[in-house]
């Protein structure tokens, strides 16, 4: 980072010592994971820059926007509709929760056997190291898994502005009605917070911005799966992660620019992996920044990741919202239509997920799927059993892994991943 942001961080109430420690770990991890890759697309320079300024320039942008009266809304789940936040001219940021930081503090509130994602949210908050959490005018929690919904009860005591969104657990008519009621309530809350009314016009604008962002990501998803792969899975994952907190319009432009470059590479048959590299999908729990452990192991073992069936990935970005409608309610219905299709494992039953996986495996010519559950994540871990069974029946090999954010099991994980790649090659 070129500018010194310590003053801004102090104003936000960050613990400067802890925060410096976090930035060090992040910087080192980033260097080792991303910058050592060879022949990266030039377009990645933009995303490298965003990452290097993730606690600097981007936070300054948020603060400048707040000074102009715009609101910042932080969230943990892809069910929080960004379209509505943009409609009130707000800024939506995903709170990352991808690092083992402050777990000792988190365990004062949470049992040890809580998934890393939840612990990380608490850890970041309690160590006062996340400028996004501290900047947010509203933090949206959601009733998804038991771990999350119960821990938000405690989290609400730690932050001043937690807003709870209820979410359905079944894909039924009553489930959809619940989602609608909750999105309407969220609309009101946003209007109150921002002092701006949601209108057909500004909501259409919000939908358009998010649709364009998703279109760009869909384009990337298609291009990255070329053979040979023109971009590493790690870099593509990074773009999917940055999706959550960059300025959406600027992000869309940068993704499209990178895609132009990838198209050129593809026409020249230029890849970052050899043409015969095993091609894998990663599926399961979301991978938030800086959780790059498993993808790094996979790609260092010689396979290329050609897609993520994850909320940081296609489960989160699949489908656009229909923009036609003459009233806010009509548009809201379109939004609900889109979000209600998300096949998160908190739904029961959740058959679409394995269908999507099979579809993705075909579309991207994947040789296998690495299923990834965070330790203590019941929804994904339990669901993995059936996903594995159905995929294997469809002759798609599956490696089922359970891990967390610590580096302890790197050795075992790479043995398993290597053996899986050997199995695919047989």
């Amino acid at each position, binding site marked *: 980072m070129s500018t010194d942001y310590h003053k801004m961080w102090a104003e936000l109430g960050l613990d400067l010592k802890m925060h410096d420690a976090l930035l060090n770990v992040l910087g080192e991890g980033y260097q080792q994971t991303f910058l050592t890759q060879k022949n990266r697309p030039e377009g990645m320079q933009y995303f490298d820059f965003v990452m290097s300024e993730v606690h600097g320039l981007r936070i300054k942008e948020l603060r400048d926007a707040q000074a102009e009266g715009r609101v910042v809304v932080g969230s943990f789940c892809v069910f929080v509709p960004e379209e509505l936040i943009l409609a009130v001219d707000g800024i939506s940021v995903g709170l990352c929760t991808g690092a083992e930081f402050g777990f000792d503090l988190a365990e004062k509130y949470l049992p040890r056997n809580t998934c890393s994602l939840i612990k990380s949210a608490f850890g970041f908050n309690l160590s006062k190291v996340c400028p996004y959490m501290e900047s947010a005018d509203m933090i949206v929690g959601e009733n998804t898994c038991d771990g999350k919904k119960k821990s938000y009860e405690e989290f609400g005591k730690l932050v001043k502005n937690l807003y709870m969104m209820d979410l359905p657990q079944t894909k039924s008519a009553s489930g959809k009605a619940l989602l609608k009621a909750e999105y309407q309530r969220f609309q009101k809350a946003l209007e109150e917070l921002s002092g701006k009314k949601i209108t057909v016009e500004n909501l259409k604008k919000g939908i358009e911005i998010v649709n364009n962002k998703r279109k760009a990501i869909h384009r990337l998803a298609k291009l990255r799966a070329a053979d040979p792969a023109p971009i590493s899975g790690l870099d593509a994952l990074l773009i999917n992660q940055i999706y959550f907190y960059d300025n959406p319009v600027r992000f869309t432009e940068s993704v499209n620019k990178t895609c132009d470059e990838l198209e050129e590479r593809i026409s020249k048959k230029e890849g970052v992996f050899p043409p015969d590299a095993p091609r894998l999908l990663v599926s399961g729990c979301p991978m938030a920044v800086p959780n790059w452990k498993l993808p790094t192991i996979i790609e260092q073992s010689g396979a290329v990741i050609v897609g993520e069936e994850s909320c940081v990935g296609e489960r989160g970005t699949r489908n656009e919202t229909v923009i036609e409608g003459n009233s806010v309610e009509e548009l809201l219905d379109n939004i609900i239509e889109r979000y209600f299709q998300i096949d998160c494992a908190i739904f029961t039953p959740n058959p679409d997920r394995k269908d999507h996986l099979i579809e993705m495996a075909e579309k991207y010519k994947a040789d296998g799927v690495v299923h990834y559950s965070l330790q203590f994540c019941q929804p994904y871990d339990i669901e993995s059993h059936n996903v594995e069974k159905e995929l294997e029946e469809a002759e798609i090999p599956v490696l089922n892994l*359970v*891990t967390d954010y610590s580096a*302890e*099991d790197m*050795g*075992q994980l790479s*043995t*398993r991943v*290597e*053996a899986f790649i*050997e*199995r695919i090659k*047989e």
Partner: protein
Amino acid sequence: MINVGLDIGSRTIKLVVFKDYEMIHQDVRKNSFDNKQITEELLAGIPYDHLTATGYGRHLFDNTPNCSIISEIKAFALGVHSVFPHCRTILDIGGQDTKAISLDARGRMKKFVMNDKCAAGTGRFLEIMANALNYSLSEFGEAAFQADRAEKINNMCTVFAESEVISLLSKGADRSEVARGIHESIVSRAFSQLQKIGLEDDIVFVGGVAFNPAVKKILQDVCRKKILTPDNPQIIGALGCVLYARSQEREN
């Protein structure tokens, strides 16, 4: 053609040397913090044409000329299949890992599971418990084999299990019955891994712990199936390495 297979495990390093189709040398050494040095000692004076490494130290041979690297899982699949062509299920209990591997009829890996982080239920666990009971490793297995009943061990964690054992002894429990309990706890762990991949005949038990007569016997009782073990269950991984090199040669 001299083909070397090397299995660099957490507790021991295993070496086999083949001249064409004949094994001309084998060796097993205790590992230390410096597995590079021990490997060099083992290989001293062996003019190999090709070396294949497996085991948790396999990456020692990354980017080394005339060397290839395969995972333990693949190495065991190949090694066991050559000794027991009808094998469909492999259990390997080594120094710090337990693995269960299922094979298809042609010996290709289908599914595999491994213990994660923790050393409970592995060879290291047995060593520590033998120590706590003041047995040598061979006495330990023998005592458990002979015991008529078992003292139940409730803790899976090595550290807690050790104090549980000590407290059992201080309460006057029989040493060999405690030994039996420890073996049963290892088997129940291994059994749950086997269940995940399915117990299809033939079942072959390998790795250093397969030398232990009590583990094998209890395993047979628990699975209600016949369990096979090769003469030297410890070198199966190294053997698999040599077979791998051979199959690559054929392909080229």
